[in-house]
């Protein structure tokens, strides 16, 4: 019963009725000769159905937004929600049926509705960005009203305490993030770049047919898998054969563990991006260099790579932004202790780890210890956004150069 009277079901029922009625009306207006109509009868029907559904949907979005933003929930009577959906639907119904005359250009009208739908769909991207920024800005303001922003950005101590009196300095987290990302890039950039160069300039077809997909498989593996690999295999390996013998640490989770594994994760990313970029360098430049008597490696080092350098830098920046935002590998491989230290065999923590740990479990959305996660998230967003925009500008400018 409730299903039949729900606004959604009513709207759909109305839409079906509108389709059928408009079609009927158009046919009867044509006195049986559909050729005299301005559009096919089905176009009348489609137009009428869309005239019901789209206004109702817009009404639904508006009332949902309003009831979410309203200071008190009681301000929105449940009945008014129904009205907001049904009134536009009925108006659309009546309007579309009334318009279904012989000379009404129903196809153009229905296509206008469809275009509106398409535009609305592409607007979701903008809405998502707005949603991301506002959801974090709002709570970050809340956080800074309870905790001084200078302490957040410049304090070197991180020790949240749910009984209050916490130190929430971002510096140790940022240090861990950058340190791990640096090690990851140290692994991924040379390996990724050299494999891209080798596979595109030296390798034979059989080698390429095997190695290229193998490297791409690395890109398709979920990060949780890398995380567990770090936790169970790489971490203990590094501890037993590296850290303990030279006496630098005895923790399985460490900056080096997370960095190495993250580096492996980034190899396909760097290599496929640089592969595209190296292939975009015109063959004529290579031929010119080889024609002058340069060896292949000299051509690559002195002609191809310098020509592709802006693109490669862009690729590295994108990889860096990936590394900074990576979560599962560091959650499982890097540890939870916030520490400012140079020793790569010690456990450190990152911004993303702390976002997860502050927002999972029982959380109280008025405590600064929870809200700090939003400030951390905003910092992370701004940081990665800056890197992405920079990389996109560089890559785009580079592409134009050779097109």
């Amino acid at each position, binding site marked *: 019963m409730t299903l039949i009277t729900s606004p959604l079901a009513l709207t759909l029922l109305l839409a079906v009725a509108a389709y059928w009625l408009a079609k009927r009306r158009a046919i009867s207006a044509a006195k049986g000769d559909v050729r005299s109509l301005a559009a096919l009868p089905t176009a009348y029907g489609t137009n009428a159905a869309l005239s019901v559904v789209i206004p109702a949907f817009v009404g639904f979005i508006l009332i949902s937004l309003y009831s979410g933003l309203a200071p008190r929930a009681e301000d929105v009577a449940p009945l008014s929600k129904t009205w907001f959906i049904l009134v536009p639907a009925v108006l659309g119904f009546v309007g579309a049926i009334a318009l279904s005359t012989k000379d009404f250009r129903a196809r153009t009208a229905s296509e206008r509705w469809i275009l509106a739908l398409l535009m*609305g769909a592409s607007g979701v991207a903008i809405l998502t960005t707005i949603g991301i920024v506002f*959801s974090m800005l709002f709570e970050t303001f809340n956080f800074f009203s309870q905790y001084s922003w200078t302490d957040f950005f410049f304090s070197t101590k991180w020790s949240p305490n749910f009984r209050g009196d916490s130190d929430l300095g971002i510096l140790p987290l940022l240090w861990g993030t950058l340190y791990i990302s640096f090690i990851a890039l140290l692994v991924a950039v040379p390996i990724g770049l050299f494999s891209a160069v080798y596979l595109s300039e030296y390798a034979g077809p059989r080698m390429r047919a095997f190695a290229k997909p193998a490297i791409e498989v*690395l890109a398709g593996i979920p990060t949780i898998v890398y995380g567990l*690999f770090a936790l169970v295999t790489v971490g203990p390996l590094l501890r037993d054969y590296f850290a303990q013998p030279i006496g630098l640490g005895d923790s399985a989770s460490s900056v080096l563990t997370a960095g190495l594994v993250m580096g492996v994760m980034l190899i396909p990313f760097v290599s496929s991006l640089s592969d595209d970029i190296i292939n975009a360098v015109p063959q004529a430049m290579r031929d010119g260099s080889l024609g002058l008597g340069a060896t*292949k490696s000299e051509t690559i080092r002195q002609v191809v790579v310098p020509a592709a350098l802006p693109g490669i830098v862009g690729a590295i920046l994108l990889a860096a932004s990936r590394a900074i935002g990576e979560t599962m590998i560091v959650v499982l491989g890097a540890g939870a202790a916030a520490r400012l230290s140079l020793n790569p065999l010690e456990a450190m923590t990152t911004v993303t780890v702390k976002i997860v740990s502050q927002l999972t479990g029982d959380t109280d959305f008025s405590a600064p210890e929870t809200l700090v996660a939003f400030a951390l998230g905003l910092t992370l967003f701004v940081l990665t956004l800056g890197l*992405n925009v920079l990389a996109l500008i560089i890559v785009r400018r580079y592409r134009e150069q050779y097109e």
Partner: protein
Amino acid sequence: MSYQSRHGSLLTEDARTRKRNRAESRFKAYGLTAVIASVLALFMLLASILSNGLGAFQQTFVTINIALPEDKLDKSGVRDPEVMAKVSTFGYTPLIRDGLVQTLANAGIETDQSAKALLGLISKEAPAALRYRVLANPDLVGQTVSMELLANGRIDGFFKGRVTMESAALDKNTSPEILQVAQQLADDGLMTTRFNWGFLTKPDASDQRPESAGLGVAILGSLYMMIVVLALALPLGVAASIYLEEFAPNNWITDLIEVNISNLAAVPSIVYGILGLAIFINFAGLPQSAPLVGGLVLTLMTLPTIIISTRAALKSVPPSIRDAALGVGASKMQSVFHHVLPLAAPGILTGTIIGLAQALGETAPLLLIGMVAFVKEYPEIGIEGFTDPATALPVQIFNWTQRADPAFVERAFGAIITLLVFLLFMNLLAIFLRRKFERRW
């Protein structure tokens, strides 16, 4: 610097050429090393997953004969499951204990262990399993049934090499003597290790009983989320791509949308989790841990991927198709929906499957919307299931890594194998579709 060998023979390399050729082969060796290193990393990763995780699909079971006395299970004698349900799982534990002792005696296995210690051979889940079986078939009461029960996680670990006599001596949950009894049972064929479907179908289990933990709820939750993602991201992504590729005028709004999409593709996934927590849970009031919310978050995350690949598919349809449609009097909209879209469909489908595969493996955003919770109940089959609490495959993996018992690590790797098999199938499907339907113009 003088080149003494400048006038040397073409057939003998001079020092400088030798140097350059050495540099060349060095460079080549670096490249080869890099390729080998990355392929090696892949093999190490896969080897580590397989060696740690294959065991999770095998489980040790013990077969014992259990007497089901009427005076303990059904005093009323009417065999009504509702009345018999009053006997809780604790009422079944002594029956299993007695059955085990009897079975040992019948097999001629002598031990000085107490009956209570011997119960450590069997999973703590066993009484519930027995109760379930009896309630499903009340006529069993009064008979003696042979039942295959899960062995305890430590015993299972012993047969898989994870638990040894030495480690058992230090373990308060088991002892070397118990392991010897288990070995004798195995020698008599009463204890066997075989393929365990329960790993794929059962729900998660508590810390104390890793042997009965399964992926059922997680697989169902992931399935629900993928349905949400498919139902939302595909139409939205295709609609947005059609607009941008076919209709959008060249103005600042279009530019803004394009910049937004390329940036959203590179936003860290955890940020989407924060978005989901703030908008869908705190603002819109949707329930925590629900596949619906997870699906919504993953939809927003995969949307850029789908839009980018759909636009590429639309772009690869040659303009002559559009021109031909327009030429015979189709409207712009008709040319797109009747001609361009069907031709681009294989490419769109391939991109969508790859986007779904990406969403299936994503963990971080789901942690923030409460999907780490311990869920033992299957979500409802049907519409209500989308708002029931559930977990997802990658989150279940994370969850198991946080447990103390090492048996859960094996299960986490087993779950990874399951996840990778799903991903493999999806990618193979995408490759198959591309091969089969791809058209070169």
